[in-house]
């Protein structure tokens, strides 16, 4: 088999793979669009559901999902970004209390998870008193923990949220309980994306800033963070998509199938698009099918729309701080 032939064959293979992916996406989206487009109308978007979800609109679900996304971002982004800053910039300094508390919280969460599931997710960490020398070890373990958090099944997060937030902290089935749960779910995404963005800032910029007499925080605030914004926004984009679309965590912590009023505080329960879809599809009659497709399409469009906004913002920042 001569080389040119092999080349062409392989390229054909690659193209086929790409085509399969694109085709799948097109079919999926197309299916939703085709079936849902007829349902979308202004009234659909602004009315409450009526007659057992066979008429009316999905307004409360839209609002609930939007609130949820907003809350999740408000919680997850600052914590995630600052954790990333700490891990990248301050990892040579001794531990401070905040980090110890977070680490403790994570351990408790894992302990709960271990109790909920029969088989342990990973071996329990040793609890010796931390010496200076094992600090590096701590950061390696921290990185592993963060990555593993991303792999925890979302239903487990839901259970965690239910047990810890709804019951133990007595938040009840509420926006805030769901938001916190989802925040933990997307935290690894934000931390990883932020960390990579921060690490990508060349050290020459930091050195220049130090040589001018800036403190570490001034340098981070004025130079490192602004230049990391595009990367952070990538994390934000991924978080939006997950927060908007996750069903399992929210069904255990605050989403309800039907509520006559919009949520009036973060402590109230709410309706959300993913859960509504699930509920309609599994528990309601076929007559609700139009609303199901409509919800799916709206959800898709919402996520795409929000992502687009974030991408535009990210591009503007990229242009502003061109290396």
């Amino acid at each position, binding site marked *: 088999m001569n080389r040119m032939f092999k080349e062409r064959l392989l390229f054909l293979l690659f193209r086929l793979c790409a085509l399969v992916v694109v085709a799948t996406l097109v079919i999926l989206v197309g299916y939703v669009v085709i079936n849902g487009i007829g349902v979308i109308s202004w009234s659909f978007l602004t009315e409450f559901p009526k007659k057992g979800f066979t008429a009316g609109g999905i307004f409360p679900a839209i609002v609930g999902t939007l609130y949820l996304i907003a809350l999740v971002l408000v919680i997850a982004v600052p914590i995630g970004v600052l954790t990333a800053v700490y891990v990248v910039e301050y990892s040579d300094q001794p531990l401070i209390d905040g980090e110890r508390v977070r680490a403790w919280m994570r351990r408790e969460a894992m302990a709960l998870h271990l109790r909920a599931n029969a088989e342990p997710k990973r071996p329990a960490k040793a609890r010796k008193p931390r010496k200076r020398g094992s600090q590096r070890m701590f950061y390696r373990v921290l990185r592993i923990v963060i990555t593993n958090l991303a792999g925890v099944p979302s239903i487990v997060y839901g259970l965690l949220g239910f047990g810890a937030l709804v019951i133990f902290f007595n938040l009840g089935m509420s926006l805030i309980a769901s938001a916190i749960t989802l925040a933990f779910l997307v935290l690894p995404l934000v931390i990883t994306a932020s960390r990579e963005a921060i690490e990508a800032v060349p050290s*020459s910029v930091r*050195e*220049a800033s130090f*040589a*001018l*007499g*800036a403190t570490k925080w001034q340098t981070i605030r004025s130079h490192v963070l602004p230049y990391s914004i595009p990367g952070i926004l990538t994390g934000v984009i991924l978080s939006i998509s997950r927060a908007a679309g996750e069903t399992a965590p929210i069904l255990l912590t605050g989403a309800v199938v039907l509520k006559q009023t919009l949520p009036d505080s973060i402590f109230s329960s709410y309706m959300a698009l993913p859960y509504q879809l699930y509920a309609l599809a599994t528990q309601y009659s076929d007559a609700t099918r139009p609303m199901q497709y409509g919800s799916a399409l709206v959800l898709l469009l919402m996520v795409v729309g929000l992502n687009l906004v974030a991408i535009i913002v990210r591009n503007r920042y990229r242009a502003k701080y061109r*290396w």
Partner: protein
Amino acid sequence: MNGSISISNLNVWFESNHALKNVNLNIGKNEITAIIGPSGCGKSTFIRCLNRMNDIIPKCKVEGRIEVDGEDINDPRMDVVEVRRRIGMVFQKPNPFPKSIHENIAYAPRLHGMEQGRTDMRSEPKTRKYTKKEIDELVEWSLKRAVLWDEVKERMNKSAYNLSGGQQQRLCIARALAVKPEIMLFDEPCSALDPIATAKIEDLLVDLKKDYTVVIVTHNMQQAARVADRTAFFYLGELIEFGETEQIFEKPQQKLTEQYITGRMG
């Protein structure tokens, strides 16, 4: 304001590697002192001690006295930010911030504010905020001092990355000058530049020594010969010889020095 530096018994370790061994040196004020030596001899490490940039490196240990104006900058009570303000540094590869030219220079003065009376380096001096007009004047002054004003005055708000290498390096010099240091450190400032840009920067250095004490690390001996008043030769972490540049290049006292400058080393 003095500007002379007196270094005694300076030792630096990177983990177990003894990078600088017992260096004793006196750098005169309003002079250009060049540090030469082969790669790995410790010259960059040495110059980074002078403004405590080695603090950033976690595994680095510094011992010894470095006296500037009679104050030991290695004293733990020293405010390292204040030290770095008084002792500016320009790096090997030009590293302007990815902002506009104006912002590059205005950043640090805006951060610190205008000094009202110089104090020792142990504490933050009293400062007041610069007005916008003062900032603009300061930026113009710095760029003029760095012989860059005429070339960039039309595009102060454009990104600094659009400048050529030599212009970027002069921008970095202007940026360092804007905080009104007493001492300027240059770590191989011309090694990334072409000969014309290098010549401009060398002329600038000779001009700067009227008002500042200049220390320059260079691997280009001819550059040291051209601009420096005194030259120090380092080898494997030790100071081998230090003296007037003419003497070092015409009649070096140490055999190692002679070997290095005639190219018969290694």
